[in-house]
């Protein structure tokens, strides 16, 4: 299942975890990334917390936690190669994985069709 936030994050459900990254649209808007400030593994986060900073040549933007939960893994490949986010935003450029506090935490998010309308 793939969901989208209004902050241009994609959220993919994999078992009892979610994988989170930024959308191609967001990556295009930001331009080539030069730095991704990743969250700490095992950190407890609340929905809306600014837990990741992505920096392009132009500007810094914050990425928020899409739901309450715990960070289970971060994509350490981005430390040396932040442009993975631009080259492959949905696959190699994923940013973090987290375990959700509650299964229905993603109910309010958009599906792909709704997100396409949102950015149109």
């Amino acid at each position, binding site marked *: 299942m793939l969901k989208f936030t209004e902050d241009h994050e994609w959220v993919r459900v994999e078992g009892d975890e979610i994988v989170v990254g930024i959308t191609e649209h967001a990556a295009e808007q930001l*331009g*080539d990334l*030069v*730095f991704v*400030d990743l969250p700490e593994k095992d950190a407890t986060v609340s929905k809306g917390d600014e837990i990741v*900073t992505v*920096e*392009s*040549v*132009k*500007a*810094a933007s914050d990425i928020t936690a899409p739901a309450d939960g715990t960070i289970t893994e971060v994509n350490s490949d981005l*430390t040396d190669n*932040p442009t993975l986010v631009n080259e492959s935003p949905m696959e190699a450029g994923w940013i973090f994985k987290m375990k959700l506090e509650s299964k229905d935490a993603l109910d309010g998010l958009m599906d792909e069709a709704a997100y396409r309308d949102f950015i149109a």
Partner: protein
Amino acid sequence: MSQLKTTPLDGLHRSLGAKMVPFAGYEMPVQYSAGVLKEHLHTRSAAGLFDVSHMGQIEIRPRSGDLDDAKRALERLMPVSVLPLKTGRQRYGLFTNDQGGIMDDVMFADLGDRVFLVANASRKESDLEILRNGLTDCDVTVLERGLIALQGPKAEAALATLNPAVRDMKFMDIGEFEILGERCLVSRAGYTGEDGYEISVPAEATEALAKRLLELEDVQPIGLGARDSLRLEAGLCLYGNDIDETTTPVEAALEWAIQKPRRRGGEREGGFPGAEIILEQLEKGAARRRVGLRPEGRAPMREGVELAAAEGGEPIGKITSGGFGPTVGAPVAMGYVPTEHSAPDTQLYGLLRGRSVPVKVSTTPFVESGYKR
């Protein structure tokens, strides 16, 4: 809000897929489809074409017909040595105020019968006021022309396809050349740290010239985003960020722009706004100083990041320009610190998102300059 102005290349920018943003009252391209990073690297390795038509192009003609009269009058507005400048040469200049602060930084040139001056877009009106009040015996005119910067190691070969004579110019030379049948004013200068040219061209001929240069394989269009990262790597100041009405030339580490004849003991000492403060600082130093900064790691430290002398310490200074330097391959910045902390390799700490991140004072430029001396 007043209507944004456009440059003669507005249509071309849009047809090239530029992302347009408001800048200093103009709609300007911040980047094209290649993106800031690639545009930056292309300029350093080949040649970049920049629309800088938003900048002020100003002509100063002495009513007496003797250019020395205009040059002497300019020395009453700038701490810079203007009088000995030879015809066909350009120099960096600064307008100052009575507090010694910088009103604008400009390029000015002796063209024999007139002085030509290029001003920052955001300071055009202020500069005109300074010039019209200060140069009462001169005619001060704004030229409505296009201005194209062609920058990078392949710039010479590119422009030479249209007039081979530009090859013989040296850094800061300026003169009139016929290009595509138009009389253009060409200077061998720019603001990227690279060799290159700035070409002042009649407004209606600007697009044809830009298109012709862009047809060359080595020339790509470059937006304001890369212009900013290029000038930052070159250690060059951005007016409004790194220098402004509250920073003096000495605080800004621009002493090199104040030549000996204008300093204490020089034959044309002082006599410009803020002279007492600036001349005193030239001898004794100022309390704070602009420095280059190299943050540790990959996280850029941008404008506004506070600097401390010790980890977790109280702020003692601030970053005025900063970002990622694509050619350096690491973050670079500049900012103001107390002079006792301004020596190269001094260890400081930037307060970044609640953390204390090490940053070292560095010499500038951060990349080797490519000027053709």
